[in-house]
């Protein structure tokens, strides 16, 4: 092909000084090739190699498009997800217990016992003057009435619940969705509870002899949420030493970091 010459020379030029001229020439040639392709397409369209090539070309183009879309939106999506997490954290960690940024101050704990419904649980640590005051993490009740229920729990360093909120669920509107704060205050009844208070026997819905209300017409949803919170507290106890020790500033109180009070 004679036409390939200008590219050769500009490639040579590129070695010395990469310039706009080269890019312009290349794009002009690509445009010309596409134009020729466009004109010849009707004659070629019944050839098998044309069809295969065209499909490949479309796949390539759409992939390129998606890549660009991802580049353009990735940053914004991450920012939105961070905002979501921050607002969830604010709901379960009272602002007076921390002066750090729990969104960034995290440890990830692998645990295969499944108490949080995840293989790896990311723990957000709240610190006041360097001392761990509370933690918050997501926990999933895998067995909700209509699917998994994602919760976020905030627990202070003594193992007392600061708050629980529902992050995502697919429970029945009008019945099971009373676990949302927007629909009912039920979820607030967890604050102040711990494994010892009221204890395993009463950390259940009333129908099962416990302290927590169920909803008229929906027992399974609150039962599973209560169970998931109980499991989350168990997870907290098992791993307490790992994050209370993490980056703990020694206070010289003589008490070993991570001691259970």
């Amino acid at each position, binding site marked *: 092909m004679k036409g390939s010459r200008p590219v050769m020379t500009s490639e040579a030029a590129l070695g010395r000084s990469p310039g706009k001229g080269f890019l312009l020439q290349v794009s002009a040639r690509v445009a010309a090739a596409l134009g020729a392709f466009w004109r010849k397409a009707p004659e070629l369209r019944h050839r098998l190699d044309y069809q295969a090539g065209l499909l490949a070309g*479309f796949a390539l183009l759409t992939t390129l498009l998606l890549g660009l879309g991802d580049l353009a939106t990735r940053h914004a999506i991450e920012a939105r997800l961070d905002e979501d997490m921050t607002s969830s954290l604010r709901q379960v960690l009272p602002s007076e217990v921390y002066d750090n940024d729990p969104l960034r101050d995290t440890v990830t704990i692998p645990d295969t016992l499944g108490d949080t419904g995840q293989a790896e649980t990311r723990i957000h640590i709240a610190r006041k003057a360097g001392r761990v005051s509370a933690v918050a993490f997501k926990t999933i009740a895998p067995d909700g009435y209509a699917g998994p229920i994602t919760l976020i729990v905030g627990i202070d360093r003594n193992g007392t619940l600061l708050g629980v909120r529902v992050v995502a669920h697919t429970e029945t509107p009008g019945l099971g969705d009373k676990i949302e704060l927007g629909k009912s205050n039920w979820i607030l009844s967890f604050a102040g509870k711990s494994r010892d208070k009221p204890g395993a026997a009463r950390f259940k819905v009333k129908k099962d002899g416990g302290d927590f209300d169920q909803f008229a017409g929906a027992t399974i949803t609150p039962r599973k949420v209560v169970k998931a919170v109980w499991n989350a507290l168990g997870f907290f106890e098992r791993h307490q030493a790992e994050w209370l020790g993490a980056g703990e500033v020694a206070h010289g109180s003589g008490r070993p970091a991570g001691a259970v009070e």
Partner: protein
Amino acid sequence: MTGDKFKMVREGLWDNNVIFVQNLALCPLLAVTGSATNGLGMGLATTAVLIASNALVSGTRRLVPGEIRIPVFVLLIASVVTLVDMVMNAWLHEMYKVLGLFIPLIVTNCAILGRAESFAFRQPVRSSLLDGLMMGLGFTFGLVLLGAVREAVGAGTLFANARLLLGEGFRGLEMTLIEPYRGFLIMALPPGGFLVLGFLIAGKRIVDRRLAVRPAVEAAVAERA
């Protein structure tokens, strides 16, 4: 030409409405129309996909032989839907949290493949754009109507949470029709969607019959006189 355009507008919005006449896309229809706002969000997202996919299919139809048109449509539609999904996640995040699950499902909305196949693949880009817009708006109209009825009967509100979709300025659109209202659960569930859809289709048939009878009656009256 203007007559053609008028006909396309009428086809999309009424005569060949995706929901009420073609009875397509019932899956997203029943899933998201628990409220008018969700219907509007889903409708607008689908309209965006329809316009873009119609334009792309029409614009490349010279290159695409009939034998491989379906895989090409699927590629184009899937890419457009994925882009809409990413854009909504990034910039319409509150709405995305409500509709998120259903946005990728627009891919399976047969109305979109249907318009690509039956219209955009045979028509110039400009007509295809108009067709996509009108079919999309007709779909949106159906979704909003269905959502509004289900929301009003099921929860006693109208356009609840509209500000999440349209911005704070539209808070005034949110209405509580009946207060206090205990709710009518079945309307919020898929069976309610089927029930309301049935009544709406019946209602449209009645309107169409009235419209068809009137000119005939007028003609008969004119003849007698």
